[in-house]
């Protein structure tokens, strides 16, 4: 909601139109606007216009007990809430010097990868929808629902798991969970050929997505692009492998990359990451029964928990990119300051403005969705 976007201006040339693209539109998973100036079908200028989902999370967290924040943080990114909980918990653990039991770390990875699967299904379904193909979106959302069933079973909540607390996780897996997880993964595997037919080898989609909104690797690095958007430019950088956290260093997985850096490549990287996440989850299904022990380190009474003064920075790989949490404690029972380095703010502001300029109006939504930005995480 940049003020200058709403100021009275001189009339543009008669062949240029200014269009309010959003805040409600199919191009993004939330409310986020784009002011585009079009010359005929061609976009000649664009200004990103966020702020519609600003809830002041970082400030709110300063007024809540360390433990109360676990109910708040998943709301920062609705499609992929798990990394928020995990990163916040890890930051608090770092401040307290808490050792998280091994089983809890495995369960966290399980939750993170499930969440990544759900988020990617949502995203490439959404990308397809922006090109006018609604079936992949319906399928993506329906298949994601199967994962939400697993979340419900594991954490008691379908979307906001609130499964982590500083020190570990709140509950162990229920009986028979790994079998049901395995069945769901088999089902997702069986769906992949259908998605390929419908989307990735579908010439309508390929033609629309290819060479749309390309970023070069240099641009990506200069603009702070991370995650699948960076890997789509050919750079195999993934926090899970390059700065491992939890138990990712004990897991076997590849980092999918693509060269072109266009909308097609970005969505294809996500499709390939689905395969890797399924691979990671299968390893967890094998290994988890062999990892015994508690699921949580003992923590003090949450109402009287002072976290030692200091600062902690934790970064993890969310489905959108590199997620950083900077948490400062002044030694009291509430955080002194929290800052979230969400990947979406880079993708949805400077990258988007650049990519949209010069493209055709019908590709605006597609470019937006292929960047997979999450408006609540941009606004925080």
């Amino acid at each position, binding site marked *: 909601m940049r003020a200058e976007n709403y100021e009275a201006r001189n009339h543009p040339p008669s062949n240029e139109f200014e269009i309010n693209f959003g805040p409600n539109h199919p191009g993004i998973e939330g409310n986020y606007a784009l002011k585009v100036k079009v010359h005929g079908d061609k976009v000649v200028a664009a200004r990103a216009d966020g702020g519609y989902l600003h809830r002041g999370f970082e400030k709110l967290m300063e007024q*809540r*007990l360390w*433990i*109360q*924040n*676990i*109910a*708040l943080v998943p709301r920062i990114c609705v499609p992929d809430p798990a990394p928020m909980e995990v990163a916040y918990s890890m930051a608090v653990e770092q401040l307290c010097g808490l050792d998280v039991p091994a089983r809890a770390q495995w369960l966290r990875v399980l939750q993170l990868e499930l969440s990544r699967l759900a988020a990617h299904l949502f995203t490439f379904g959404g990308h397809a929808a922006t090109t006018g193909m609604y079936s992949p979106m*319906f*399928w993506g959302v*329906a*298949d994601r*629902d199967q994962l939400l*069933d697993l979340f*419900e*079973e594991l*954490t*008691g*909540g379908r979307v*906001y798991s*609130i499964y982590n607390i500083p020190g570990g996780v*709140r*509950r*162990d897996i*229920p009986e028979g969970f790994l079998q049901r997880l395995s069945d769901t993964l088999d089902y997702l595997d069986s769906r992949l050929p259908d998605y*390929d*037919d419908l989307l*990735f*080898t579908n*010439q309508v989609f*390929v033609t629309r997505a*290819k060479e749309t909104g390309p970023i070069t690797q240099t641009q990506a690095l200069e603009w702070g692009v991370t995650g699948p958007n960076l890997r789509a430019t050919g750079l195999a950088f993934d926090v899970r492998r390059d700065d491992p956290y939890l138990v990712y260093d004990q897991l076997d997985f590849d980092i*999918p*990359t*693509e*060269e072109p850096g266009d909308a*097609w490549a970005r969505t*294809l990287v996500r*499709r*390939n990451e689905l395969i890797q996440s399924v691979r990671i989850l299968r390893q967890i299904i094998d290994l988890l029964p062999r990892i015994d022990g508690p*699921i*949580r380190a*003992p*923590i*003090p*009474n*949450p*109402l*009287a*928990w002072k976290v030692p003064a200091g600062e902690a920075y934790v970064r993890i790989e969310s489905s959108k990119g590199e997620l950083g949490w900077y948490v400062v404690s002044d030694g009291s029972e509430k955080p002194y300051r929290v800052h979230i380095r969400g990947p979406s703010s880079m993708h949805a502001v400077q990258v988007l403005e650049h990519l949209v300029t010069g493209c055709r109006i019908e590709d605006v939504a597609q470019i937006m969705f292929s960047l997979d930005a999450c408006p609540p995480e941009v606004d925080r």
Partner: protein
Amino acid sequence: MTDIDYKDSGSILAPLKSLSFFGRASVTEPLEPRLAALRYRGFHLNDWEKCVGCSTCQKVCDNAAITMVKVPALPEDPLQGIRNLRPAIDYGRCCWCALCVDLCPTGSISLSREYVHTCTDDELSSYFVLPDPKGMHNELFGEGWNKTEENDLVDPVRQPMPELAPASRSDNFDEIVHGYDKQQAIIEASRCVQCGMCHDACPTHMDAPEYIRAIWQDDLEEAVRQIYKTNPFAHTCGRVCTHRCETACSIGKRGEPIAIRWLKRYAMDAFSPDQVKDIVGRPGVPASGRKVAIVGSGPAGLTTAYDLARMGHQVTVYEGLDRPGGMPRWGIPEYRLPYASLDADIEVIQAMGVEIRCNTWIGRDISMEQLHLDHDAVVLTLGLQLGRSTRIPGSDHAAVHKAVDLLRWITHGETFDVPRSAVVIGGGNVAMDAARSIARLQRQNFGQVKVTVTALEDFDHFLADDEEVKESAEEGITILDSRGPQACIVEEGRLVGLSTLKVVSIFDEQHRFAPKYDEGDRQVHEGEMIIEAIGQMTDTDLLGEELTESLDWNRGRLQIDDDGCTSAPWLWAAGDMVRGPDVVHAVADGHRTARSIHQFLLALETKGALS
């Protein structure tokens, strides 16, 4: 790189693949209501039987969705830590995080598997719900997210108290309990959920949540200030209080209650009496010119004195013995309450301007009439200094003593023949004090212990504290339950033992004291000394015949009104002699009496001004 070949547009027949979908079930969500997962976080349930209304759920709720609502139909019992408050949930605010479940001290609250509620515009109040075990719409969906060991955030384990081992304590009167160090105290204080059940249960309503929080914040001066708001016998209560607070503590419903008594002690031990005086300060109240006499310098008397002195009155405390302190000094052994701790409390009280005159027996050195003439008000806090006798055959023998007398001799340092074997009659804490004191003296003198405690009650209904029983046994004392004393056996003028019968029942059907014995089960316990610890009474001889006649009595106790005033408007009575049975009740009594006297003195002032 991917295995997708996007350039391969495939065979011309590829679209026929879609025919395969005719044979597949479509991806649909069923329309009928779906049963939620077993640990689903839906609408709340609350087991009203288990819930004690401690409000912890309200405190941890991060959306302020919980309001505690009074339910008058439910029982309320401050002594057991039960309030008739129950949480009501505003579902316009709740985010179903279930932290209320995880932190509930009793485990009463849980979330159900129910998740559908709709209403019309004018029924919006239906989103404000008082959860009960039946669920939101009386349809039993069952528990979803509930309390398990995994997600329980209540810390049920108390910090262990370092203390002297039995071997190093049983031949001396050194204090057994060492007290917490800083780290232990802060951890112990951090377990508190600030529910305030302790405050409600405490006879003098100490602000325990406040001082526990101050200890947690390592602000011990603030802790002392909070303690002194309601209790000038802080060192004493920090050691020997009967801690009603801990009985009521909501953490104690499933785990070990917060060690409130030890935390108080920790805060007090951090300061010298001089520092405490500075922290507590003396209110700048002008002198009222009114004089109050207090007979007896126990907790009731000195608390009254402390309050009245701080209200600006001139207070004189008369004590018959040579040192002030009353029962805590003369009745409680040094290993439980070191005299220095009691002295520290008394020093602060004296610093408020209280004058204590020891070795002054009222009724002998000064008459009650004189006392009345010299003062505007008089308070009797005589305590229970006379031991009761069993009056069994042989109990008039010279080697049969009352426990209170024995304990007083030990405090006073009087010499007496320590018996090689002793029998204690009684099962309360005084019996334990006497037995453990004698056992210490025996070990000092003879290197071995032979003390037998015979109690009427069985162990399930024992009067003494569990820890007293445990520690006594560790010190080599034999404790026999369900034994009724029959006779002190005297042979050739020497006391040799006590014969007892097995107790069948203590009370009759009307709950009157009428012990029944099993005549076939007789035992003789060897003892050169027998100590009777079956109760105490007040010595009111000092009142004199005339005053005794004119006052109202109730079953041998002075009749008092709610504020402690007797039937004579200038005379109050407080402490053990009118209400029992321990230090903290005496302190509470002292405050009540002081308030009443202050009102009385103010009224005198007004009358004086009018006349």
